[in-house]
């Protein structure tokens, strides 16, 4: 199990993701610089971490999608390898077209950081397979542009294809996201983008361990299939 965590200029949750994988779960994890063009040999999964890549210039994620490493990330995704985008990572996935839709400013027009409850909507993905359907996960959010937007036909398609991975609990939507969407999958179900931070909810000491199973699922999904 080898997970690459990409560091863009302005990433600030890269260390936290490496920490959970390496120190909490014992998974081999390492940082990859955004200017690299190849993922290291043996990479089985990729995490695009949270933060403010390129200082959120233009739009969150709008510049990071052009970073040289993104070609290799896309290729990894196209081969079916698991790719997880957390917070700014989700914004980058959406800007890259690896996930559909768009991210808007929070409906409050303010940054929001708090604990929310998110409901597991599908078990059909490497990331969610170790949860129970309908399980509520306690995780923090911390973002300014977390309001997921999709036009009605796309929303209908996401639902029909069971691609909504997580929804904010009713009444606990922190950003006005369409249909309370907190995380969604690509058609191949190997790319997950989510606004909440499972890496900050993987130790009981920090308030919740609910995020751990997501990383366990991701890390074991592609074992032995790395390029």
């Amino acid at each position, binding site marked *: 199990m080898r997970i690459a965590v990409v560091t863009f200029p*302005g990433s600030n949750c890269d*260390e936290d993701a490496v*920490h959970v994988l390496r120190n909490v779960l014992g998974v081999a994890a390492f940082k990859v610089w955004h200017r690299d063009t190849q993922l290291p040999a043996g990479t089985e999964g990729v995490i695009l971490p949270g933060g403010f890549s390129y200082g959120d210039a233009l739009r969150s994620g709008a510049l990071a999608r052009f970073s040289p490493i993104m070609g290799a990330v896309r290729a990894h995704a196209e081969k079916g390898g698991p790719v997880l985008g957390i917070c700014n990572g989700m914004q980058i996935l959406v800007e890259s077209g690896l996930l559909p839709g768009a991210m808007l400013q929070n409906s409050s027009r303010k940054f929001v950081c708090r604990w929310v409850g998110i409901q597991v909507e599908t078990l059909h993905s490497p990331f969610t397979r170790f949860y129970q359907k309908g399980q509520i996960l306690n995780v923090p959010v*911390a973002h300014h542009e977390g309001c997921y937007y999709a036009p009605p036909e796309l929303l209908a398609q996401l639902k029909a294809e069971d691609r909504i991975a997580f929804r904010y609990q009713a009444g606990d939507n922190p950003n006005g996201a369409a249909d309370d969407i907190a995380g969604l999958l690509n058609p191949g179900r190997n790319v997950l983008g989510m606004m909440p*931070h499972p890496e900050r909810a*993987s130790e009981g000491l920090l308030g919740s361990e609910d995020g751990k199973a997501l990383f366990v699922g991701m890390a074991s999904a592609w074992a032995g299939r790395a390029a």
Partner: protein
Amino acid sequence: MSGVVDVKLARSHGLTESEYQHILDGLGRVPTLVELGILSVMWSEHCSYKSSRRHLKNLPTEAPWVLQGPGENAGVIDVGDGQAVAFKMESHNHPSFIEPYQGAATGVGGIMRDVFTMGARPIANLNSLRFGRLESPRMRFLLGGVVAGIGGYGNCMGVPTVGGEIAFDPSYDGNILVNAFTLGVLPSDRIFRSAAGAVGSPVVYVGSKTGRDGIHGATMASEEFGKESEEKRPRVQVGDPFTEKKLLEACLELMQEDVIVAIQDMGAAGLTSSSCEMASRGGKGIEIDVERVPRRETGMNAYEVMLSESQERMLMVVKDGTFERVRAIFEKWDLSVAVIGHITDTQRVVIKEAETVVADLPVGLIVDDAPSYDRPQQRPNLEARWTLPNLAPGGLGPRLLGLLARPTIASKRLVYEQYDSSVRAATIQGPGRADAAVVRLPDLNGAPSATQKKGVAMSADMNGRYCQLDPRRGALLGVLEAARNLACVGAEPKGLTDCLNFGNPEKPEVMWSFVECIHGLAEGCKALGVPVVSGNVSLYNETEGRAILPTPSVVMVGLIEDVTRTAPLGFADPGDRILLLGRLDRLGLGGSELVAMETAELLGRPAEPHLPEVLATHRAGIQLVRAGLVKSAHDVAEGGVLVALAESCVAGARRFGAEIDLPGQGELLARAFGEGASVIVISAAPERVAEVLAMAKGAGAEITEIGTVGGERLIWPGHLSVSVAELHDAWANGLGRALAAV
């Protein structure tokens, strides 16, 4: 600006006539314009501490664990196992009043730079804020802008904002306070300092390019505000947290290698103060060619380059022959990097513009000969305010609800939810959860660790009202409150940083209260054995002759040996017993929130702290929390014991009522709402109460059982019965309603 340097131009630079004469005498000639600019900014109150220097010496700064005391970019204390923490608090009051978002943002950026200049990775931010009356639309704009600015910068840097304090008082109508604190972690044997190295060593500029922003910001921060202060907006710097994040990573990367001899951030007074301070601290000289300074604007002259306060810049002295390594790292992070000069043995600061010398000043004149004033002091008639008003008896319920809704007391959730408080995966007690913020320490490399047991606790405190009524006692009470908050999370106090915010020091009554507050801080720190390791002075917080309350804000830092043993402030389970540590009869209504609410005046003398009792209470609190015997701990502060109890009822993960009986015979309002030092509300499982009592008594503390957690109401039979829903509504929505009211 005319190019002719004379006394008139000197005055427009904020220098007095006698200061200008001192320059003429020291130099033996008329200074050049660049020299005048350098001297005026270095001799400003902000940079020279000319009114405060002699008094700051009264603060205790030493302890065996202090690795770096005041005088560097930040103080450093040893926390054991090869680790140290660097921390400091700094004010950005004047710029934040003029342009709240950028003023606050660059304050946060500046203090983080101070900390990573020492070689520390920042792991926690706090802030201490003061605003005036929210009835004013301008004040609501300032609050919104400051909070957004603090969040905008800290969030982008990936440093969690884990705590702080906000208070409101009409005295801050014309001068808000924005004090920003950062704590970072570093290996205890690898502290970077700013003293210039060997003669000939290259002086390297790194970070952002230099523009015309913020010229004379330090001088602005050394003046009172008048009607024209709006015009000073161009003196406020503009922050770019993205560049600072890159600067942080590049600096820490370079610090892994044996390259840097000295490093100093370019904060107030930019290149001028960083170069002069490096030369002064190293006992050397420095020569800089402004033509080689990376710029973002064309046509800047030497004066502008030297006085620019463009953000996100650092000055370093590196080992000869290592520049290519420096260049590689900073270019990797897309930052400017250039050799702009070298260290000399002349003990002079020489500024060249290509081949022309535009300034040539002795370092001694700039730094050592900076003016130092023993300004006249005058004790005001404090006693005139020490008589308490007659308040109508009874009415505890409505009064409690009124106090809980006061913006100073009500939940600050609207504010702290705009700060990322959980990035770095180490926040054990974030904002609103406990009396002090608690963060798990990272590993030796600054990365999050799952095996690390140790943590740091931090608490920001000070009550300006107490300090106005009795400056010495007020400052002492603030220090004790910080320590009490640390005790509530089981932390042993280890160090303190302060930010001394006052009015115009040329007014004898302001100066007197400044000196008295320093004595109060010193008394508290000495009693606690806590050294002051860093700090900042902000004077001239005055508008049209009206000064702020004396506000010597402090942040105290404590150490926790086992982060699994801390306590939240909210009650945990029904049936738990509620106890008071410390003596309720030591509290009083002098300077209290209740008196302020009912009279809109500043009246009474703050209650006297009895130090041996206070220390025993803290000791007991720390022991009880560390032993895991208590489920909650919350200090009695503004609003008194009933407010503390109500907060413990409604601020936790779950809400509870409680039935209590407050001990004592004294006047009912004083018992219910009295303030002062040394009382902590704790709760414990009934079967542990005997152990709790024994441990507290063993620590020499007074302890009294006062009731039980549970039910839907907070009840004091015969005196008070309020539903939890009402308590929660008042407390949770108080600030929102104050902001929404027109």
